[in-house]
């Protein structure tokens, strides 16, 4: 039953990201709700479930992107594993620590996607690259408490 709700949450978050209103964009940047969900799953469920739904979330995002490589699927599974390893080595019970982890994951995720985009031949000015990297990550972190609450409610 819980797994069904996780799937439903992914569908809702994808729909929300696809229809994210322009007036909620911050300097043409929108938050990565699915990344927060992927990280939150590691904190509130077992590793296998978190990894499975992390991959599904990445896939759901990649399906709607105009790229051929499923970069989000790869990245999300890496973040699931990394956060799980980190969680097993040090205690991440503090809310601020969790927010920081989301921020770091978002920064790395955006950096990789940005580099991939540049490597694909796209010309992204340095200013735009930095703007996307920083604002998306901070915006993602700022919205993380909401998604954490949603994930916790489903998981517990």
């Amino acid at each position, binding site marked *: 039953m819980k797994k069904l709700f996780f799937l439903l949450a992914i569908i809702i978050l994808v729909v929300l990201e696809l229809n994210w209103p*322009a007036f909620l964009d911050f300097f043409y940047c929108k938050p990565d709700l699915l990344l927060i969900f992927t990280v939150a799953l590691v904190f509130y469920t077992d590793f296998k479930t978190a990894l499975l739904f992390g991959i599904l979330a990445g896939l759901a995002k990649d399906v709607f992107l105009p*790229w051929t490589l499923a970069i989000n699927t790869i990245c999300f599974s890496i973040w699931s594993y990394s956060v799980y390893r980190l969680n097993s080595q040090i205690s991440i019970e503090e809310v601020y620590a969790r927010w920081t982890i989301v921020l770091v994951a978002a920064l790395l995720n955006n950096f990789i996607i940005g580099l991939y985009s540049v490597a694909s031949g796209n010309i992204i000015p340095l200013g735009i690259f930095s703007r996307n990297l920083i604002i998306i990550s901070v915006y993602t972190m700022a919205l993380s408490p909401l998604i954490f609450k949603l994930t916790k409610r489903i998981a517990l």
Partner: protein
Amino acid sequence: MFKLPRKTLINFILLACAILLVSNFLSCLKNPVQKIFKPQLSFIGMVKREALGIIFYHRNMIQAARLQNDIDSLRWRLFDLREVAQENARFKNLFNFKQKSPLRLVAARVIGRAPDSWSSSVIIDKGSYNGIKPGMAVICPQGLVGRIVESLDSTSKVLLINDPNQGISSIVQRSRQEGLVNGALSSNLIMRYLPDEAQIIIGDVIITSELSQIYPKGLLLGRVVNIGREFSGLNRYALIKPAADLANIEEVLVVIP
């Protein structure tokens, strides 16, 4: 012959004079008398209103609640009708454009946007069933929107012109100066590889050139809003504000070659 008594006649004349006198004075009296009585009348009116309000409190409360419901439902209907009217205006605009345009066009509605900020694309509700294929140009009455990059059965993905993956061969309409327009993930596009002596000024209109293999010639891209020198110092660049409102686009037209 009929004869009026003298006394009656005098009384009648006196009465008529009195009426005439009062009538003349009445207009002079009206204003001061009403001024004097105004506070009292207002007070009495207020007391009466309040008393009636207390007496008929329950009835008024029910009536107010019913009217509030009516207002709420009418407000929603008004909101819906405004939305329908706006949609109607947009469709009318699109239809007029489609009628006038010499191109073969398929109208489509935007149903989703790119879920991240590293690409600029939209998903439309028409796909290969409607004859849409990758590479087709997508426009709107205001100007060029992008091109189809992926076509499924009933949906297609449109790469917008402000995506960095876009490279559109274009010209300045006034001077026919050629350049390559790229997206930059922002509200403006960049026209690159402009030589020093390029004939381009702020406000110039940029259109697609005939060198473009994807886009039909002469489609409006936007206007020049700024001109600068590239970091290498070899060329100049121009910032172009797209004619189409890419952030809020809702309906588009796919050009069938």
